[in-house]
């Protein structure tokens, strides 16, 4: 049994997004209509159809982070970079995303930038952290 979701995950991991030519390849190889592949690609939130930005910012908006002020952190980043969750800056430098929970609730509110963890964030500290990537 071929695990189609797994195949897409491999592409996502390798290129940081689902490259169109790779999807075409899978479609031909496995004889699966491209439309079906797209339905998967757009249903699951870990897939992206656009290339990744240079730096990826992920704000955890799990319950513990929410209670401790994740909302203000997101607002502050929106203000600073001019992009809302899901968007990329025009210079392709930052992509902002939110995630339902990273499961490290002791560090709430928690932000990761390029996979580095920034715990116990405040609206001030997140700007300091962002500036090291500017």
């Amino acid at each position, binding site marked *: 049994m071929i695990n189609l979701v797994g195949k897409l995950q491999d592409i996502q991991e390798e290129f940081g997004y689902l490259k169109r030519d790779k999807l075409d390849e899978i479609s031909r190889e496995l004889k699966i209509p491209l439309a079906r592949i797209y339905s998967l690609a757009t249903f699951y939130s870990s897939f992206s159809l656009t290339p990744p930005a240079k730096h990826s910012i992920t704000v955890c908006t799990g319950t513990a982070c929410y209670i401790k002020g994740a909302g203000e952190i997101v607002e502050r980043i929106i203000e600073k970079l001019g992009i809302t969750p899901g968007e990329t800056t025009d210079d392709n430098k930052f992509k902002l995303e939110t995630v339902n929970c990273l499961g490290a*609730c002791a560090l*709430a509110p928690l932000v990761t930038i390029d996979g580095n963890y920034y715990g116990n964030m405040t609206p001030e500290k997140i700007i300091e952290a962002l500036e090291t990537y500017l």
Partner: protein
Amino acid sequence: MRGKSTTVQTISVAGGTCGMAAGAGEVWNKFARVLGENSPGIRLELTGCKGFCAMEPVVTIGDIFYCRVRPSDVEEILEKTVHNGELLERLLFQDDGKTCETRREIPFYQYQDRRVLSLTGEVDPVNLQDYLTRKGFESLKKALKMKGEDIIQEVKDSGLRGRGGGGFPTGRKWESCRNSQADSVRYIICNGDEGDPGCFQDRSLMEGNPYLVLEGLIIGGYAIGAEQGYIYVRSEYPLAVKNLEIALARIRAEGFLGRNILDSGFDFDIEIVRGAGAFVCGESSALMASIEGKIGEPRVKHIHATNRGLWDKPTVLNNVKTLASIPLIIGKGAAWFSSIGTENSKGTMIFSLTGNIKNTGLVEVPMGITLRDLIYKIGGGIPGGKKFKAIQTGGPSGGCLPESSLDLPVDYEALLEAGSMMGSGGMVVMDEDTCMVRVAQYFLNFTREESCGKCPPCSEGSLLMLKILDKFIAGNADEDDLDQLGAIGRMVAKTSLCGLGKSAPNPVLTTLRYFKDEYQSHIKGICPAGACPGLNQ
């Protein structure tokens, strides 16, 4: 040679995701660098999460428990504690001015009964030898000499119920799968798609003791007569996937998995399936659709998965904690397992204690403990001198319980009666600065975003409720809105297709039930918590 120890001392650094995020990796690296290749008498170990997340990075040396260790502390720990047996007071846990010299003295651990978690945080998670010397896979050996029916009977006798949400009796689920469609292939799946925000019990187990989960899965496979198992892991948990992959490769090499396991004639293998970021895939039929490579939409369940599940074959789906309990039940017996707990909720439950609480962490307690003991004795109460307002149990499908519910025993039925649920074990504490209307909005937002969109009650109903909540938050709501909100909530609960839709209005319905005065204040333009901009406090 005063102070020189002759036995091997183990320096153990907690390296779960939470510990690593707090800087445990740097601490471990520093130890490794200073100790070098050759350090006779000292063993350096990177374990899974020890549970006390608020104190990460945590380092233990025997019974000594050091909190918030920095790389700059490492040389002193080695020189004073490891070589000379002296304690570094500044790194010990302080409880109201009292210094706890050993882990046993720390209240956070004192009131726990760590059974399923007994090795999590105590061993190198992927070191098979460590697991084997602690009686690992003894239960599998014992099970392989038993009949499937007898294993199922033992699990039934133990009273174990599903630890993922619904609380269905595990033994009965196994039995109905074993007895359906004779001669068919069967599947068993471990549900590690821990999607509830504020939960990390399953992650900690998969990361910190993967062998225990896998042993439970293999025993389950044998009991129901399956040859193939799956473990579905949430995509946000890379360390869990990595440790499970290593663990799987090692047990396959040692004959605990694959063809003719331990010469018993039983063939069984396990595949890891990574989730792709959809909360709804924690729902059983959606999860199976996802493994089949489809979008994760739930289906109507007039036919149970134990009869027609994955690829229409009889399938058992169990939560990580459920399967991790199996080796204990087989090894120590049903009577041992059911000796603690309440009448209908046996054994222990693992909770993630988070939010406005001093001792954030992972705890394992006997079923039946009161919420009050969980929050105050183990959790240390609310920080900053704030007052308790609510505890949210059961994730987005659960509910918010008020002060007056704190003496409730933690038990499947008691929580359901109170309008919440056990769920997977999330416990988020909220203090007086939390606005309950906004909390309801938060959870509904979550549900709306994660709704698969297949059935209108869930997808449209949550949107309608959200619009009403927005009116409350802006101070534009009236009494009619209050009635409407309740009516729509009850309609969604009654008519949604899957369990997630049915339980989606719970946060709204429980806040309406217990915090109605707060909604009424919003009608008058007042937010008691002072959290809604534009409203008075």
